[in-house]
């Protein structure tokens, strides 16, 4: 490796930048186009050819969405369900990960496998019986009912992700704590949990986002205004009485932007989470 970069290296780098830029444009264009369309009045939505940027900017679609009779309620519903799912999945996930990372626990390999299999169960397979069960328990159209269905995919994922992290906690730290006379419980709470905090944040992040974005279970089980989530409400706009593109695009934008901000702020954890899932275990 001389001080000057050779030509091949430079072209390779240039090529890489070009490729990445092209991909970036492709990745970001739909986002840009969605927002640009949502900011223009009806008369400019359907021009031939379409204009990349609006001539007049308007917030009327966004205002219409906010005034939609159930937007605020849907937002609240999505929040409640996502939070509830996250809390349960992460708490039980931590407990499970702790147990399965104990060296001498009997049946832990089997249980780890069970968790992984549970994670791989696609929602479409469970949706019919869960629908039956939740209706049978009188929990249809309740937050709790929907939370229960979300747990079916959130908890296994959470447990699995946390487990791979919990396994990396060195034995000696725990031993030292035992030697000091702490109970297992105290060791768990005061030593292990703080050490695994980054993975807990990651698991919570993923669980929240997956629950927030979820559609199928919410579509099937949450239909009253009191429980409809944002995704279901947005889909209903399409099934409404006229195809209001402006409203649909503005609503989509309002769903995506918080998700984006969330991702950007927590990107460190998200990248870690994605890779933890892929590389470890």
């Amino acid at each position, binding site marked *: 490796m001389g001080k000057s970069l050779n030509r091949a290296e430079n072209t390779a780098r240039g090529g890489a930048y070009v490729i990445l830029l092209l991909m970036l444009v492709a990745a970001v264009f739909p986002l840009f186009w969605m927002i640009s369309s949502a900011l223009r009045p009806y008369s400019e939505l359907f021009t031939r050819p379409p204009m990349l940027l609006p001539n007049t900017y308007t917030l009327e679609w966004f205002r219409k969405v906010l005034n939609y009779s159930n937007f605020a309620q849907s937002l609240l519903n999505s929040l409640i369900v996502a939070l509830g799912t996250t809390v349960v999945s992460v708490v039980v996930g931590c407990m499970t990960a702790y147990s399965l990372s104990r060296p001498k626990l009997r049946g832990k390999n089997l249980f780890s496998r069970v968790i992984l299999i549970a994670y791989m169960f696609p929602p479409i397979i469970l949706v019919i019986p869960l629908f039956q069960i939740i209706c049978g328990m009188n929990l249809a159209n309740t937050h709790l009912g929907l939370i229960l269905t979300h747990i079916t995919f959130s908890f296994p994922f959470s447990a699995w992700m946390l487990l791979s992290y919990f396994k990396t906690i060195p034995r000696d730290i725990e031993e030292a704590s035992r030697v000091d006379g702490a109970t297992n419980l105290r060791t768990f709470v005061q030593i292990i949990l703080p050490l695994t905090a980054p993975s807990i944040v990651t698991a919570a992040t993923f669980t929240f986002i997956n629950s927030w974005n979820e559609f199928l279970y919410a579509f099937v089980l949450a239909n009253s205004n009191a429980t409809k989530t944002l995704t279901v409400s947005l889909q209903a706009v399409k099934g*409404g009485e006229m195809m209001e593109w402006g409203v649909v695009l503005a609503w989509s934008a309002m769903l995506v932007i918080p998700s984006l901000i969330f991702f950007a702020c927590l990107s460190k954890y998200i990248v870690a989470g994605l890779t933890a899932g892929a590389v470890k275990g």
Partner: protein
Amino acid sequence: MRRVLSLVLCLLLMMSIVSVGAMAEAKPESITFWMGYSQQSRVDAMEAIGQKYYEQTGVKVNFEVVTWPNTAEKWRAAYSAGQMPDIIICLPDQAVAMFVAGATIPVDDVIEAIGGTEKFLDSVLTEQFYDGSYMAVPHYAHDRLLIYRKDALEAAGQSVPTTPEEYLAVTKAINDPPSYAFQQLFNASDYGSAFMLDIFMRTFGAQYFDESYRIVFDSEETVKAVEFLIDMYEAGSQPDAMDFIINDQFTLLNTGATLMTLDSAFTIKSALDSAPEVAEKMDVALAPANYITTFPVCVCDGENAETAKDFVRFMFEEDNYVDFLASYQPGMNPTMKATAAADSAFWKLPVFENALALKASQTQAEGIEQGGYSIGNQFGANPFSGVLTSGYVEEMFQDIIVNNVPVVDAVKVCAERMQEAVDEQKDALGW
């Protein structure tokens, strides 16, 4: 231990007092109302009526928007979970399904309270009557009209079509991509083609059902009607566009992507609001057959049924009724004789100062007077019309166009599939 026991006893005592008190309170504090009206103005109008009711009686009405296509699936989940609302406004075939399942109750007494069946236009009550009683009260009605661009017809020297041959001729004459003459609605997740076909089937003398609700779709007349619609597609639709749904119509009309279509006067309302320059060039006429849809108000079987019935009666008091109708015109025509009469407050609404709005509403009224029915309800309300709007017809059209299946075969297969579905329904209902 004794302290705990006495505490528990006190608690039980308190709880029993509270529950007895609650039971003694016969009137509910609130009732739940599901409706498919999603436009803000209609929601506001309903809420205003609810507010008036609250001021009069102290009962709150909680409105929830449940879109038409979703109601069919959602009421079942609600019913199994014991969470039905108190009042539902839905589509006619959904009303029957709920009534047959016992989720809703007869409303003969409500109609009496409103003033009796003579208060309603004749044609609007047939779809509400089933198995000896009235399942629902018709809130409003609309008719599918021919919506057309008079400038396009003039430019091609065409007059308004009335027969299928004329429709085809006009379509060919004015088709001018990207302004297509008459876009078809072939998306299988909706029933756009089922109703378009229905209107022309009646002209050709074909039927979906016979009186005993056997599918008689497979007939020569149907084949002619289907071939006609295929010709219309080839002459006036964007090639390959198999995914238009009914509520794309508004965009299609407002942007000139279609120059003619069959739909209700709601399209005029949308054009007047969103694309006035296009609205100026639009006009309406009666369709070859009157496809009239009424919107049933059903009362659910529950502890609040009496209050619910009272609220329904309240909705039909003249002032409240006109207030509601005013919230979205043209498009909603009155089902009550007094309101439909030429001298009523309805026709004096400011919206009718616009000539097109007035004409659209009047044309709908004409069609409703003449009488007609919506798909499958030729012999009255029945639990099977829903089968016809489940996408079989759209799938048939797609098979013909995309897979080149001969029309005769496709019609046969469609009829068989619909018959299967009807049989399954009959089986499940113990028919």
